[in-house]
C-alpha cells in the first residue's frame, strides 16, 4: 500500500486583501498622489477614445479604462532607476511610470497640473496619434511607448514579446550592482505563451529582480480565461517555477501598492523574481470606445458589477471619507484634467477644411516627414569613428596559419578581459571545455559571472540578450548552437531585436552579437542544417558578418562588438577545424564595416560567396581553370554590402555567379541577384547565375545530405556550363 503526502511548492503563493483599516492607515500624500495619477490617466484615455471615435487615431487604441488601479498601485513606489515594460494595452502603465518619474513625491490634485506633466501628456498623445513630436516620432504609436529616461523601456504589440526583454533589463540591474528592479506588465492572454513561461523559468533560475505583473482582466479580446486554461488563478503559475507569487484585487490601488511593496522588498533583497496577479477589468472592448457587451461576449450586468469597484471612485471615496479632500476638490481635479486634455487637443488639431461642422483633423505640420520612413533603421556607425581598421594587406605583424576555433576562443577571452561589459550566453557555453565546439574554451573559469549556460529556451535567452543590449550597460554575445533555432526565437530576433531601434524612433542602440552556427554536413539533418543568412538579410535592423578565416573572425568579431547595432556572426562547423591566415596572439585588430575580400583576382567571371563556401569556390575555380574573380563578402546585410568591390568586378567581368551552400528557399543570393541586376544591368553579359543547395533541407543520410548541399563539384559544374555558352 503506497503512502501519499502532500507536496508544497517551495515558493509561497498568497492573496493580499485590504480593509478600510488599511485605507485609514495609508499616508494621505500616497492617496492624493494615487488620485492625481488615476484622474490624469483616466481623463487622458477617455480623450484618446474620443479621438478614436472621430477617426483621428490611426490604428487601434487599446484603452485600459477600468484597469488603472493595477498600474498606479504598482508604479507609485518605483524609482526612476527601476524599469517597466508592457504590452499593447500599456497607456496606463506608461503614464503611471512617467508621472512617478516626474513627481516621485506625488502630484497635488488641488494644484494646477505641472508643466512637465502637461508636456509629457502632450508628447504621449502625439505619439499615440503618430505625430512627429511623439517619443518615437510617431513610429511606435499607442502600442510602442518608450521613454527610457523615465525607465519606461517600451511597450510591445506582440503578446508576451516584451517579457524576455524585461529579463535583460533585470539582469543588467543586478549585475551592475544596483538594487533596481524591472517590472514586466502583461495580461491574462499572455500567460500561456512560450516566451513568458520561458522567462519565468530563466528569471527564477538566475534569481533576477524581475516582477511579472499579470493584469488579469479575464478576456483575451473576446475569449474568456476559463475557456483557455484550467487554472484560472493565474498567480498559480509562479510557484511551479519557484517564483514568489501574490494575488491581489487590482481594482483596489492600495491593495496593489501593498502587494507591490512586499514584492519590491523581495526583489531588492536579491531573492529572485516575483509574480503579482492583479484582477482588473477593462470597461471597453479590446479597442475603441464601445463596451465589450456590445460585442456580446459578456453582459452589461457583469460590466456594471465591475464598474461598482472602480479604482478612481474607490480612491476618491476613501480620500473624502478620511477628510483629506472634499468631494469638490475631487471634481475640480477631474474638471481640470478634462480642460487640460481639451487644450492639448487644440495643440494638435484644427478644423478640417471643407469638413462638417466641428469636424477636425491633425494639423499638417504635426505629421512626420515621409522622408523619415527608413531613417535610423540602423546606426550611422559613428561609434566606430576614430578606430583603427586593418586588413590582411596592411596589418602590421607576421601572418601565419593558425586554427579557426582558437581564434574564436582567443578573441572572446580577450574582449571579456578588456571589456567588463561583454557577457557570453548560450546552451552549454560554460561546460564541455568551451561549449559543443570549444568556441568558449576557458571563459567560464576566468569570468564566471559573465559566462552563462542557459536553459533550452531560445526565445527567453535571445530576448534577455536583446533587453540587455538595449539597456546599454552590457554587450551580450548570444550563441545559438544551431542556426535553425532562429525559427524558435524568431519573435525576439526579428520582431524585437531587429525592429526595436527603428520602431522606437531610430536612435536607440542594440549592441547585441549573435553567434550562429551553420552545421551543414554534420549529419544533424533537416532541422539543424540551415544557413540563416538569407532570412536575416530580410531583417533590416541586423548586420551580418561571415568570417572565413581566423584573421577575419577576430577582426569582424571585434568590430561587431564595437558596433551599436545587432550583428549576427555566422560560423560554420567546417571552418572550426580549419586553419587559415592569422596574426598570432593579436586579438585587438578590427576589420572595417562593409569591406569584402577579393580572394582571387580574375577577369572572366565574378563569383560572390561567403563563409565556408569561399574555399569550395576557390577549389572549383582552380579545378575548372577559369580566370574568375572570387569575392568573399564578409558583410552580408543590405547596409554593409561592399558595392564598390562588387561593382568594379562586375564592370570588369560582366558575368556574375552567386555561390552558397544552403537550401534554395532560405538562400541568401536571391535579393543580391535582384539588386545587382538593377544596379548593374547594363554591365551584364549574361543572366546572373546562382549555385545553391537543393530545395529541401539536408537529410541525415550522408549521401542525401551531400546531394542537398552545394560544394566544390556543384560550383565547378556551373562554371563549366557557363564557360560553354
Amino acid at each position, binding site marked *: 500500500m503506497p503512502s501519499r503526502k502532500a507536496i508544497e511548492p517551495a515558493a509561497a503563493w498568497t492573496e493580499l486583501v485590504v480593509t478600510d483599516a488599511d485605507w485609514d492607515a495609508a499616508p494621505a500624500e500616497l492617496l492624493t498622489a494615487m488620485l492625481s495619477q488615476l484622474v490624469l490617466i483616466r481623463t487622458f484615455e477617455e480623450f484618446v477614445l474620443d479621438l478614436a471615435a472621430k477617426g483621428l487615431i490611426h490604428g487601434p487604441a487599446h484603452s485600459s479604462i477600468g484597469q488603472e488601479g493595477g498600474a498606479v498601485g504598482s508604479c507609485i513606489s518605483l524609482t526612476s532607476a527601476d524599469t517597466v515594460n508592457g504590452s499593447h494595452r500599456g497607456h496606463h502603465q506608461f503614464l503611471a511610470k512617467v508621472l512617478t518619474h516626474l513627481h516621485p513625491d506625488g502630484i497635488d490634485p488641488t494644484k494646477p497640473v505641472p508643466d512637465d506633466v502637461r508636456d509629457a501628456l502632450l508628447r504621449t498623445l502625439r505619439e499615440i496619434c503618430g505625430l512627429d513630436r511623439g517619443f518615437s516620432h510617431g513610429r511606435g504609436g499607442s502600442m510602442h511607448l518608450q521613454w527610457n529616461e523615465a525607465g519606461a523601456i517600451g511597450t510591445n504589440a506582440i503578446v508576451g514579446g516584451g517579457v524576455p526583454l524585461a529579463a535583460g533589463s533585470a539582469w543588467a540591474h543586478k549585475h551592475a550592482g544596483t538594487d533596481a528592479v524591472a517590472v514586466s506588465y502583461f495580461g491574462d492572454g499572455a500567460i500561456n505563451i512560450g516566451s513568458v513561461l520561458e522567462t519565468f523559468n530563466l528569471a527564477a533560475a538566475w534569481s533576477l529582480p524581475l516582477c511579472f505583473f499579470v493584469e488579469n482582466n479575464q478576456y483575451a479580446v473576446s475569449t474568456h480565461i476559463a475557456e483557455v486554461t484550467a487554472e484560472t488563478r493565474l498567480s498559480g503559475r509562479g510557484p511551479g517555477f519557484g517564483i514568489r507569487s501574490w494575488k491581489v484585487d487590482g481594482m483596489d490601488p492600495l491593495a496593489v501598492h501593498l502587494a507591490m511593496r512586499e514584492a519590491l522588498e523581495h526583489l531588492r533583497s536579491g531573492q529572485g523574481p516575483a509574480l503579482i496577479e492583479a484582477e482588473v477589468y477593462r470597461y471597453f472592448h479590446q479597442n475603441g470606445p464601445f463596451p465589450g457587451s456590445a460585442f456580446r461576449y459578456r453582459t452589461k450586468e457583469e460590466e456594471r458589477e465591475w464598474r461598482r469597484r472602480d479604482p478612481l471612485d474607490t480612491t476618491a471615496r476613501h480620500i473624502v471619507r478620511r477628510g483629506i479632500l472634499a468631494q469638490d476638490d475631487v471634481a475640480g481635479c477631474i474638471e481640470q484634467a478634462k480642460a487640460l486634455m481639451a487644450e492639448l487637443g487644440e495643440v494638435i488639431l484644427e478644423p478640417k477644411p471643407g469638413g462638417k461642422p466641428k469636424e477636425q483633423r491633425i494639423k499638417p505640420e504635426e505629421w512626420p516627414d515621409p522622408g523619415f520612413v527608413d531613417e535610423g533603421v540602423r546606426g550611422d556607425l559613428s561609434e566606430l569613428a576614430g578606430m583603427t581598421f586593418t586588413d590582411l594587406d596592411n596589418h602590421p605583424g607576421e601572418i601565419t596559419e593558425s586554427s579557426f576555433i582558437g581564434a574564436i576562443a582567443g578573441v572572446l577571452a580577450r574582449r571579456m578581459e578588456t571589456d567588463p561589459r561583454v557577457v557570453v550566453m548560450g546552451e552549454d557555453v560554460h561546460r564541455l571545455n568551451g561549449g559543443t565546439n570549444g568556441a568558449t574554451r576557458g571563459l567560464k573559469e576566468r569570468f564566471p559571472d559573465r559566462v552563462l549556460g542557459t536553459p533550452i529556451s531560445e526565445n527567453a535567452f535571445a530576448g534577455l540578450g536583446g533587453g540587455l543590449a538595449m539597456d546599454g550597460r552590457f554587450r551580450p554575445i548570444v550563441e545559438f548552437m544551431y542556426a535553425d533555432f532562429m525559427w524558435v526565437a524568431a519573435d525576439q530576433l526579428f520582431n524585437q531585436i531587429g525592429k526595436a531601434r527603428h520602431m522606437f524612433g531610430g536612435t536607440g542602440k542594440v549592441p547585441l552579437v549573435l553567434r550562429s552556427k551553420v552545421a551543414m554536413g554534420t549529419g544533424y539533418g533537416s532541422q539543424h542544417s540551415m544557413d540563416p543568412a538569407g532570412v536575416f538579410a530580410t531583417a533590416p535592423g541586423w548586420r551580418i558578418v561571415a568570417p572565413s578565416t581566423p584573421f577575419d573572425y577576430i577582426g569582424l568579431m571585434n568590430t561587431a562588438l564595437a558596433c551599436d547595432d545587432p550583428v549576427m556572426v555566422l560560423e560554420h562547423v567546417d571552418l572550426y577545424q580549419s586553419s587559415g591566415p592569422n596574426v598570432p596572439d593579436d586579438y585587438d585588430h578590427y576589420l572595417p564595416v562593409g569591406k569584402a575580400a577579393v580572394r582571387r583576382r580574375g577577369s572572366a567571371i565574378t563569383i560572390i560567396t561567403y563563409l565556408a563556401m569561399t574555399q569550395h569556390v576557390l577549389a572549383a575555380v582552380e579545378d575548372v581553370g577559369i580566370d574568375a574573380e572570387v569575392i568573399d563578402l564578409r558583410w552580408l546585410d543590405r547596409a554593409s554590402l561592399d558595392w564598390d568591390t562588387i561593382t568594379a568586378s562586375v564592370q570588369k567581368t560582366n558575368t556574375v555567379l552567386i555561390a552558397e551552400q544552403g537550401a534554395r528557399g532560405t538562400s541568401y543570393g536571391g535579393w543580391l541577384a535582384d539588386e545587382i541586376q538593377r544596379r548593374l544591368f*547594363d554591365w551584364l*553579359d549574361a543572366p546572373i547565375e546562382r549555385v545553391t543547395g537543393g530545395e529541401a533541407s539536408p537529410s541525415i543520410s550522408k549521401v542525401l545530405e551531400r546531394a542537398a548541399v552545394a560544394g566544390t563539384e556543384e560550383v565547378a559544374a556551373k562554371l563549366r556550363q557557363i564557360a*560553354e555558352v
Partner: protein
Amino acid sequence: MPEILRMPEVAANTTEAVVSSWNVDLNTPYAAGEAIVTVETEKAAVDIEAETEGALLRLLADEGQTVAVGSPIAVWGSPGETPDAVDALVATLDLPTGITTGAGSDDERRAEAVPAESAVADRGAGAASPANGGRIFASPIARKLAAEAGLDLAAVVGTGPNQSIRRRDVEAALAAARSAEAAAGGPDAAASPSSDHAVEPATAGAEFEDVPISRMRQAVARRLVDSKHSAPHFYLRGTVRVDRLLDVRRELNDGTQAAISLNDLVVKAVAVAHSRVPGLNVRWNGDSVRQYRQADIAVAVATEHGLVTPVVRGVDTMPIGTLAERTRDLIRRAHDRRLRQHELEGGSITVTNLGMFGTEEFAAIINPPHAAILAVGAASRQPHVVDGELGVATIMRMCLSVDHRPVDGVTAAEWMRELTGIIEHPLQILA
C-alpha cells in the same frame, strides 16, 4: 546495322563545331578514307574521313548548323539498309523536333533546342526570328556597347544561347569594322577608340549590304581584340638593306626547283635571331613566362575565308630548302581550308608580309599567345647613305610589335639589332 556518326572533338576543349559541307550524297557508297563531311571550328576546317566503306543513310544536321561535340550528325551503314532500321535508330536518340544545338542533355538545355530549319535561318546576321516575336536577343552589356558605338544589333551575329548576342559578338563586329577602316586609314589605325568609328546602322534599302561573317572571321576578330586589350603592345621599327639578301636568294634559286622566297629568308633570319636572343622566344602565361627551346614561327596567310597563321616548327634546325617547301605546303592548304588544328597552334612569333602589295611599312597586332609579330614591308630601291656617300640601295622596312608583359624594350632592341645584322649578312642565315 546502321550506325550513328557523331560530331568529333576537332581540337581539345572545343565544345561545338559547324557542319560545313556534306561531301558525299545520301545512299551513295563511299570508300574507307574518303572525306564524307567537312566540319569547321573557329580555327580550322577539318575533313572527317570514313573509317570504313559505307553510305550516308540520313543527315541529322544541315550544312551550316552548329552541333555540340558528341551529338549525332548522321546515320551511316551499308547502302541497302531499310528506312525502318534507320527510323528505329533515330528514335533511340530522343531528338527533339529538330536537332539540339546545345551541349548538355538536361531539361533546360533541351528547352532551348531550336528546330534545325530555324537554327539555320537564325545564323544569319540580324536574324530576329519569328519565333522570338521579332526580338533580337542580346545581353545588356552587348546592347550598351552597341548603342555606344552606334552599331545596329541586326548586323551582329550572336553566338550565345538562342543565338543571343553577347559582348564578344559586339566586340568582334566592332573589330571587323575597325579593320575595314584600318585598311583605309594607315598603319595601326585599328588601335583607335571604337567610339570614334561609329558603324552606321544598317537600314532596309541602304546603299550597302551587311555580309554575314564566317566563324573564322569572327574568331580572328575576337582574338585580335583580345590581343589589343590584354597584351600591351610596343613597337620597334627598323630599316635593312637587302641587296645581298636578294643576291643570295638569286643564287639559291638559280638552277634549282626550290623557289625560295624573300619571306622564307626572313623567317629563317628570325629563327637565327631567336637562337641569339632567346628572350623574345617566349610567351606570356599569366603567372609565368614560357621559354621555348626551339624556334616555331607562324606565317600569316591571307585567304578568302580569313586570316590564318600556320606554324612552321623547328625553323632553327631546318635547311632553307625544307623551310620553303614546308611553308609553301602550309600556304596552299590554308587556301584550301585543309590545315589541321595542331598546325595552327604554338609558336612565339608571327611573320607577316605585305611587301608583295607594295606596302612600305606597317604595324601589326600580335597573334595571341605569341610575344611578338614582325611586319615586313616591300623591298625597294631608295637613296641610301653609306660612309657619307649618297647612293642607291634596296631597302626593306620592318616593324616589330612586342608584348610588353614577357619582353622588355632592351631585349626586343637587341633582337632587332641581331635580325638586322643577320639579314644584311645573309650567309649567317645559311650557316
